[in-house]
């Protein structure tokens, strides 16, 4: 947009109002992070003192050092979170790429119902199904292993991944399939050599959203199906900072920021894909 259309010109008071609105909105969204960060800089003695002071006095990054000493397993928790999320994302992609291709490019009886059934899965969060899932995991003998968190995690991420990727694949011109068919390519060859390369940006978006979902939603399965410290992911592992007497808040916040950082870096670099891909999927709905 080199020449801004007239309609988008704001008078000075409109600009002030808009910025005030944005500031108000972002204040709500970001204030916990600001407060959390300031807490991580404050010494514990200042945290537990009245009256409340917003800015840290003699603040330091000390908590970022001591957090590793108070909870020696913290590095392991981050690793676990990443490990679980990566495996979950890989399994979801393996299941979802063929399925969304089938939904996008083939016509068969019962397709609408099947797609609806997949969407319905979204509505039942893991929490409702915890009891039988617990029994299922016990029967499979995977309680207190990584798989106890991976197996149910995958199932609840499949539906939205299918939905997103299907919307993307529908937009790939049907002529490509027909041309490949004319040239004698098998269905499988067409999928692998024609569709997959074109769908790559869509697959990346799905991979990112699935990864975020897996990284963000590990709490309930980890809480219920795993009690071994060495397999705990970040969200449950952070409870290690809840001491017997009191919570070590500054270290808890420092640990939270360290735990968030890797995911934030990924998001920052991939945000162009993310916003575009998400909104494209959303509007078509």
């Amino acid at each position: 947009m080199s020449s801004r259309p007239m309609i988008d010109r704001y008078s000075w008071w409109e600009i002030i109002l808009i910025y005030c609105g944005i500031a108000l909105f972002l204040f709500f969204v970001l204030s916990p992070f600001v407060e959390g960060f300031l807490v991580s800089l404050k010494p514990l003695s200042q945290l537990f003192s009245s009256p409340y002071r917003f800015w840290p006095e003699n603040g330091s990054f000390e908590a970022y050092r001591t957090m590793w000493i108070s909870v020696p397993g913290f590095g392991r928790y981050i690793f676990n979170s990443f490990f679980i999320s990566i495996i979950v994302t890989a399994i979801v992609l393996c299941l979802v790429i063929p399925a969304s291709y089938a939904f996008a490019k083939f016509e068969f009886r019962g397709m609408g119902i099947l797609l609806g059934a997949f969407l319905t899965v979204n509505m039942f969060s893991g929490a409702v199904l915890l009891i039988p899932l617990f029994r299922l995991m016990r029967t499979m003998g995977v309680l207190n292993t990584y798989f106890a968190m991976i197996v149910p995690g995958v199932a609840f991420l499949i539906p939205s991944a299918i939905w997103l990727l299907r919307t993307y694949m529908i937009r790939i011109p049907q002529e490509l399939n027909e041309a490949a068919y004319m040239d004698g390519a098998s269905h499988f060859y067409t999928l692998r050599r024609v569709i997959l390369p074109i769908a790559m940006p869509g697959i990346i978006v799905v991979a990112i959203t699935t990864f975020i979902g897996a990284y963000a939603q590990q709490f309930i399965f980890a809480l219920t199906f795993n009690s071994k410290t060495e397999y705990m992911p970040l969200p449950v592992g952070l409870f290690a900072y809840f001491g017997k007497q009191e919570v070590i808040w500054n270290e808890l916040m420092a640990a939270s920021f360290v735990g968030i950082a890797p995911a934030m870096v990924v998001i920052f670099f991939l945000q162009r894909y993310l916003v575009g891909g998400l909104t494209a999927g959303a509007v078509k709905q």
Partner: protein
Amino acid sequence: MSAQKSAVIFAWILLLPAVLYVLAIVAYPLVDTFILSFTDASLRKVTNWVGWVNYEKIFNSTFAEVILRTFIWTFFSVALKMIIGTFGAVMLNAAVPGRSLFRLLTMPPWIVPMAIGIFMWGWMYNGQFGMISGLLQRFGLVDGPVAFLAYGSTAFWATIVTDVWIGVPLVTIYFLAAIQSIPKDLYEAAWTDGAGRWYRFRRITLPLMVPAIITMSMLSLIATFNSFDIIWILTQGGPSGETTTMIIDTYQTAIGSKKYGEGAARAVLICIFLSLFCLAYFRVTRRLNPEKRA
């Protein structure tokens, strides 16, 4: 074999892994919940068929109160998400410098692991040392410290606010996309006719956002109804059950007290409500875009 037929077979082969996976991990447990709800399953080895006893127990307990509370909690949470999401989307749609940065800054609550965001709120709600109580005292709005999570009424609203905070980014981004898909010529036509900004918002943006708002509030309703982490981390359903929603109650009964049968009966009730929401969602979306069937 005709090409048509081979294509259908190929499609089913592609679908099979995902279908089987979901059948095993979601459909089977769903059926199992239903069966369990008629038994007295617990940690004991023997499990007896007890018929409707678990359901009778539910209605003789405080569960009716829990259901009502869940609906009120969900209603306010969804309503606030929609209002704040609409506000945010309209603000972020304005063509002012820095807007792509502002859009990016709305994402963190959604991207960050939920538990971490909830810990931060937990600290802010702290009565003695937390920010909200501290600032309220500083500005003289309250006399003494307010321990938000210690009293039923404040804990109720505190958990709602945190839930709204986590849900707002996705709603905002979705609404932003909806606003941007409104044809630009509508605005230009109205503008040429001398319609002001507020008028254009009221007469073009808002009406054309209605389908998105309805769709999103249905989806949000289902997600919010299922909300577990927030209440569990902040209050565990307390104080004295004032933030116990259906999901929390089910968890406490089934996983906490190991009464699988009674827990399953509660889960079945949740499933019934969810199926109703789900049905409503499909009907509404079909009516909103009749030409694009799911």
